């Protein structure tokens, strides 16, 4: 839990959060992991003054794993709110990766419209995918491959 990369997991399903947490835990690059159950909670966090302190080092290197289909504020609602208020825009160290069970092409296309979205991954998220995400977005922090 001392790695340089923070992760915000936004998912209404407790079991999904658990499984993702387990996979994230395999990577030494990952430091703090914060879980929220809904887009609005994520928004409150991202828009709040304590965002950086919640999510670790300065400057932040934060991976936001964002589910789409959530009860109150969906992943897209969250992205729209974030874009509207230009949150996360200054920090290219913040990357949103959609993590969803949806294979619906419309969802993928829609996600690609948001600048802050770096990838679209279908659940479940597996350890090799996490590694390739880190290598893509923060290669300087990627731990040397063990195998």
């Amino acid at each position, binding site marked *: 839990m001392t790695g340089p990369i923070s992760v915000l997991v936004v998912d209404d399903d407790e079991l999904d959060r658990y*499984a993702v947490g387990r996979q994230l835990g395999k990577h030494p690059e990952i430091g703090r992991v914060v879980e929220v159950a809904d887009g609005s909670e994520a928004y409150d966090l991202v828009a709040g003054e304590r965002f950086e302190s919640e999510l670790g080092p300065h400057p932040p290197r934060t991976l936001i794993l964002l589910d789409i289909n959530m009860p109150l504020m969906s992943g897209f609602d969250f992205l729209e709110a974030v874009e509207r208020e230009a949150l996360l825009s200054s920090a290219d160290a913040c990357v949103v990766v959609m993590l969803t069970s949806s294979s619906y092409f419309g969802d993928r296309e829609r996600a690609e419209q948001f600048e802050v979205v770096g990838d679209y991954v279908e659940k479940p998220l597996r350890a090799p995918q996490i590694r390739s995400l880190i290598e893509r977005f923060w290669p300087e922090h990627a731990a040397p491959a063990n195998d």
Partner: protein
Amino acid sequence: MDDWMADRGPQHEPNPPPAPVAIDDALSLAAVPIPLLLVDSGGTIAFTNPGLDELFGYDSGVLAGQPVEVLIPPDVAGSHRELRDAYAEVPYERTMGANRDVRGITRQGEEVSVEIALKPVEIDGVAYVLGSVIDIGVLRAEQEKTRLAIDASASAMIMFDADGTVVLANRQALVTFGYAGDGLVGRSLNDLLPDRYRRRHAVFRAGYMTDPTQRSMGDARELYGLRSDGSEFPLELGLTPIDDQGKPLIMATIIDITQRKASEDEIRRQNADLVRLNDELGQFAYSASHDLKAPLATLDGLLDCLRDDLADGTVDGAAELAVRAQELTRRLATLIEGVLGFARSEHAAEGFCEVHLGDFVETMRTDLGAELSAAGVRLDVEIDPTLTITADPHRLRQIVENLMSNAIKYCDRRNADRFVAVRVEPRGEHVELTVADNGIGIPAEAQAQVFTMFRRFANHSEPGTGLGLAMVKRAVDQIGGEITFESAPGASVFRVLVPRVALEPTAAGVTT
């Protein structure tokens, strides 16, 4: 019975008889090309001209001296004699046979259709009646052909004059407007139109008479006809101006489009159903990708963890993971059952019958008894037990059961006194059914999507498929009702307005 003298024309006293015309030379009548005869006051034929002899098939001159009844079919000859005597008392000029079937009989015994004009005359101081006879048999035959042609038309045809009086109507017109015999001729067009059109129609007709061109009405706007029993029917109308020797007439061709409109409405309704079903299908396909796949993806993720644990030999959490995985499979099964139920509910219909709402709600109480007691929720019912509506009980059940079930499911467990209140009240042509609770409420930001399939507002660890309210909305639509709600933490109210006599089920709603 048709006979010569019974045809007295209008039923008022004839004008005072004109003075008989004096004829100087009876023989000059022979030169007149119209068949003529002179009859004396005793009914004896005094003279016939060649035209008349020819018409009735006699040799020249042989009719003179014979009673006029030899020219009349035997079945009416007797009554003719009496009427002839009456005429002799008050002779006046008149026509027989106009619009009537007056018959004569020839020497060979054949009947001929004739029109006869009578005129009292005086020759050498002796009173006679001069009768002119026209053979209208050919004319009649032509008229008959025309009438048969018009009657053969599948459309109602009504001819009316500039005053809007019907002068001719075919058989279909009688059927369409519900009249018998000659019931239409002589009627005003107003009798065939609903009250609300009459004033307007008079204006239109006047306008049409000044600029009569053939036109078809009923395309752009809906026209209705009025039957003799007072009922109305939608019609399509074609108007054709006819000039009858300077007299403007209009031939109206009328098609009763009740059936056509009914099929059009039916097609429109089916189309709306198809559009709705298609929307639902699209929504379903989208939702299936999200909602049916989600538990599988989660399960997949959990099994990854389990495999890792087994590989590492850290099996402490393995049992817990297996339990969670199993819960997921059950959740997915429930969801699939819900989807199947939703699909089935589209077609399940019991048909319409009278539903006693008091009994109905009590049945719901029994059926939901286990849920109620498990959640510790009290059910309050306020209903006039005599209240009934005509509806499909299956749809009604979908509505009430889902609303009550939701109210129970989303009760607020922090609240010691938890209740669901069902109230049914008459509202004019409708009945208002209210399901209220003091549960957790629907979050304000979620209320816009309450009736959308798979939308759920509690998080996934709570029960529910996200299909209940979508099904309620659809059932309410199908019985022609309306649903509204208000919700805040601690108070939700769903109001359903149901027609006392619910609409006929739509095609998609009924499979027979």
